[in-house]
């Protein structure tokens, strides 16, 4: 399954992408030079990893880890300040009945809600992530996307989830996509020099092929994304196990080549605790245990958290729990 790109330099050697990203043609040559993905093989490997049985103490560990990895998300037109405040409170104390329950990783909201979320979260350690760059379609002029990003960063967002221009990517304007990511990354820098983490959303449901997923992963990593994220959650199919596996292969190979670690975030469509555990198995088997950490792997989800909490309660009390005992959102 190793997929080191043919152009990769010897391990340990500093990787300089300036050659690759010199022009659209060179970038295209590099991305299309990546080995193709065997779709049937990828599907079946992801399916076989999904059959692992995770029980008892391993399951308890996986559930807590998954809770710590959740980016609790609300991205609706009907979001109110009250809902964002409630969500932020939930991210800090997902299960108020059980003080041993860990906090979620972050709250993910639209840029105008960042201040509201920040107010509640304070220095609790739960991050605020904001979707920017004309989420979810990404169809806006670059300066609007950058202004959107700066607004969110100024309001105190710790993480920016940007969407790529899928139209440009699909029509082969790779350099345009690359430069946009670079520009957004620059817009993530705060006046004090610290920088908000950048997650790059691919919307893999619109990218048609697994080859494209691998290409766009490399493109985003070369452009300096801290995280690569599958989807906005607004398009079906959203995150799937094989797509996430291909992205995990990409970050693994990228670290082999450059020494830099990039995080992965599947988002949308992960609803059950069992699904979440399948993802964790794939993370461990494909990328390695280094990625089993909220700094390197996240779930973009809303309903998933309650499912994880119900399973957690089942493990601690020995009886099945129900949705009546957890907040609705």
């Amino acid at each position, binding site marked *: 399954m190793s997929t080191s790109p043919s152009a990769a330099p010897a391990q340990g050697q500093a990787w300089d992408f300036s050659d690759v990203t010199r022009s659209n043609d060179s970038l295209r040559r590099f991305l299309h030079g990546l080995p193709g993905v065997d779709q049937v093989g990828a599907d079946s490997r992801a399916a076989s990893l999904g059959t692992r049985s995770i029980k008892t103490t391993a399951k308890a560990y996986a559930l807590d880890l998954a809770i710590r990895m959740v980016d609790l998300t609300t991205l609706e037109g009907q979001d109110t300040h009250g809902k964002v405040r409630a969500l932020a409170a939930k991210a800090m104390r997902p299960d108020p009945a059980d003080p041993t329950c860990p906090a979620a990783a972050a709250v993910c909201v639209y840029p105008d809600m960042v201040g509201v979320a920040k107010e509640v979260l304070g220095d609790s350690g739960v991050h605020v992530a904001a979707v920017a760059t004309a989420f979810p379609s990404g169809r806006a002029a670059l300066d609007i996307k950058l202004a959107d990003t700066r607004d969110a960063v100024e309001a105190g967002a710790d993480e920016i989830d940007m969407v790529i221009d899928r139209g440009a990517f699909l029509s082969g304007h790779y350099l345009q996509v690359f430069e946009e990511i670079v520009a957004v990354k620059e817009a993530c820098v705060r006046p004090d020099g610290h920088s908000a983490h950048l997650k790059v959303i691919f919307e893999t449901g619109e990218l048609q092929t697994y080859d494209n997923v691998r290409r766009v992963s490399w493109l985003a990593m070369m452009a300096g994304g801290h995280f690569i994220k599958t989807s906005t959650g607004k398009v079906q199919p959203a995150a799937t196990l094989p797509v996430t596996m291909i992205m995990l292969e990409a970050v693994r190979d990228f670290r082999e080549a450059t020494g830099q670690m990039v995080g992965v975030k599947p988002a949308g469509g992960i609803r059950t605790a069992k699904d979440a555990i399948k993802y964790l198995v794939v993370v461990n088997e494909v990328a390695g245990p280094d990625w089993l950490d909220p700094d390197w792997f996240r779930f973009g989800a809303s309903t998933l958290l309650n499912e994880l909490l119900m399973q957690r309660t089942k493990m601690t009390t*020995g*009886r*099945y*729990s*129900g*949705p*009546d*005992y957890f907040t609705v959102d």
Partner: protein
Amino acid sequence: MSRIDVRKTYKLFIGGAFPRSESGYSYQVHDTKGAFVANAALASRKDARDAVVAARKAFGGWSGKTAYNRAQILYRIAELMEDRRPQLVQALRQSEGLTAARAERALDDAIDRLVWYAGWADKLTQVIGNANPVAGPYFNLSTPEPTGVVAVLAPQESSLLGLVSAIAPVIVTGNTVVVISSFERPLPAVTFAEILATSDVPGGVVNILTGSAATIAPWLASHMDVNAIDLVGIAGDTELATSLEVAAADNLKRVRRAPAAEPDWSADPGLDAMTAFVETKTVWHPMGV
């Protein structure tokens, strides 16, 4: 040339579909003379869990239907039972060892019972609801509302009349149900599930598990998302009934207690089986303007 026997293995009925047991187990079902009849799925606690999820999902739609509509749907089940008469008669003869005539009569009773309960759908509120007299310019109305997801342990002896008498009063008021059928006599329940699947009952309103009540019921009794449990089916098993009542206390489930012996199902059932699984909702409503 002699035919090869078709040895059937029946499945569970969960959420309107017929899945195999998650455990992969099945068990042999014998007739009253000890001859092999078929295999039935042996439900596990995870099947019970899935059934509760399906029942919860179906609850909103089923309880939201008009009482009149629920009555129509119950009548429809009775119609389909008529259509499947030979199959049900045979199942009754095999499981309960009845003669053909007595099996026909038992089936008549079961169908009549269903029709009787169907009629109650839009009448129960008039009988147990009330317009309360209050000293103010208000209407004060008490109406029965369904309790929610109800776990039913079906009678062990009366495999069809008992089953129908346990399920119908629960669903007619808008509850959804997870049933554990008779362990020794599951086949009428399996046929009943096939009838439900082809009737107008929405998937998940009735979920039928074949298997051992002693194994599965504790999980349902302690399940925080089950609102009530009917223990009449384990009549006589005081020890199990007590432990289930204790487990049910955690989320204040409504419990219909197990009698000392299985009741005579052919007797007039009265309203108890329906009123055990409704909640009285009282609303104040301003009167006049």
